[in-house]
């Protein structure tokens, strides 16, 4: 039996046994969708706004679901380190990377499931994708990549601090990432200069832009390529950090 597979399955079972860790974050994502679509939907009537507000706001909901799903990876590692089970796993011949990849891949499965659920809810609410099913699949792909980038970040913090509270605190990066961006209105309508700057340097902005172009505008190479480049760069940085920290945590001292 492959140790990677054993570790992934075990992490998945762990997640499903603790629905309290899954349900609130998913509920927040759905909340974004209903409340902001209902409350801010008239933004779509502003001159120059392309497509539907639902198509505009659903990437926020998707990104939020992706982040919360990805955060599970770090939480799972912390739980194992806290219980001492991580050391027990280190005493087995399991490949060291499987110990870290297990929770990351399992978190990715949960993340994709949550994102698909959000997309389905969106479709039921009347979402129309300007690029059809292929565009929706790409949106989910973006969410996955972006979630994995965030998972790398939580894994890095979990292994670095080995402390549940500190790792929990690290997930608060969720708030600036999600909210200091073109979250509710397009960049051109943001009047506060500081928020414009924050949104411009926030990688989330470019992920939003790519998803929105797919849903509301049609096939446009510009936002897609920029979004892809930013996401891959972000994932590479956090992935390298996670890998470095995983090597350190599983290496003998």
């Amino acid at each position: 039996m492959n140790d990677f597979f054993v570790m992934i399955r075990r992490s998945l079972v762990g997640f499903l046994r603790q629905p309290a860790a899954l349900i609130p974050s998913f509920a927040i994502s759905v909340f974004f969708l209903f409340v902001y679509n209902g409350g801010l939907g008239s933004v779509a009537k502003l001159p120059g706004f392309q497509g539907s507000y639902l198509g505009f706001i659903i990437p926020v909901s998707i990104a939020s679901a992706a982040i919360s799903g990805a955060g599970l990876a770090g939480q799972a590692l912390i739980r194992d380190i806290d219980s001492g089970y991580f050391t027990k796993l280190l005493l087995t011949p399991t490949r060291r990377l499987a110990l870290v990849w297990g929770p990351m891949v399992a978190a990715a499965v949960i993340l994709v499931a949550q994102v698909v659920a959000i997309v389905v809810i969106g479709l039921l609410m009347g979402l129309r994708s300007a690029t059809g099913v292929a565009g929706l699949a790409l949106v989910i792909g973006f969410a996955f990549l972006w979630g994995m980038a965030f998972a790398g970040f939580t894994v890095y913090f979990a292994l670095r601090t080995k402390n549940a509270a500190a790792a929990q605190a690290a997930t608060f990066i969720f708030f600036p990432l999600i909210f200091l961006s073109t979250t509710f209105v397009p960049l051109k309508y943001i009047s506060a200069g500081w928020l414009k700057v924050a949104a411009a340097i926030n990688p989330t902005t470019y992920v939003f832009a790519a998803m929105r172009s797919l849903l509301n505008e049609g096939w446009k190479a510009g936002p897609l390529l920029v979004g892809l480049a930013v996401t891959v760069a972000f994932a590479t940085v956090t992935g390298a950090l996670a890998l470095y920290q995983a090597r350190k945590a599983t290496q003998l001292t």
Partner: protein
Amino acid sequence: MTRATAPAHTQAMPDTVHARDGSDRSIVVERLTRDFGELRAVDGVDLQIPSGEIFGFLGPNGAGKSTLVKMLTTILKPTAGSATVAGLDISRQQGKVRQAIGVALQDVGLDPIMTARELLVMQAQLFGASTSAARQTATRLLETVGLDDVDPKKRVGEFSGGMKRRLDLALALAHDPLVLFLDEPTTGLDPASRMAIWDEVRRLNAERGMTIFLTTQYLEEADKLADRVAIINHGRIVALGTPSELKRDLGEEVVELSFDSPDHAEQAAAALADAAPECRLGDSGLRCYFAVAAHEVPAIVRALDQAGIPLRGLTIARPSLDDVFLRATGETMAEEASAPPDDEQTEEVR
């Protein structure tokens, strides 16, 4: 009172290096050393443990017990020296060592949201068993450690301390290891659970020929279970031998002298420097070691009388492993057992 000198512990390697089936199950430690910053936790330890031996490892808290076990089980790197376990080098063949050993460490935990069977199946799979073989192993081991009548849906988080210890032992056995490391396997357990673990350790050793390296803070445990015992203090082995050898080294008999106050005991130790050169201050008074105690009693009583120290009681007994420990470390095991828990001695089983 002079400090105890360590009995010679450089014994020749017994010639039963290989078990009946020819596999090497020995543990050979050479000048193994581990520093933590300025502190030398393990200081040039040498040990030769032949295949099939139950080896008891005793020492006060912080003496280096757990540090040595962590190095031998490949989760801590030695600063200097070397060791082989089952003939495999702990620094160069870590993967193979892990495959050959079963480990139940005191501060290593279990995942509380899994069931006992799930943990056992997973453990066997991580050691390379197929799913069906892993399931069979889990069934057999749950029976072995007496957890087969537990509700199969019960999660490990709801287990009692004794149940967790038994499950941990089962996990250590999931791949039928050649050498088993048990770090304080019965600390914090009730007498019945302790006996059950002892029986299991004896059975594994007798039936499967497993070499068992056991650390403990209970002298009784080492005395009952171990073929040989080592005592470690300040990172060095200060006594090594069979329990009866160690006790014999002290002299055949011990005279226990009790006093009304600790001051009197200390004064008595000084007054008896000539009459009883081998004395140690313990919890209960002064303990003096002789070949034949009855011959020395009149001289002891005379010396105390001359010094004007009132004696409350005098008993002649055979030395216990407590005496060995007291002599080797200058501390009593009882003091150690009641010391506040630190990372070597955690009361609560995680």
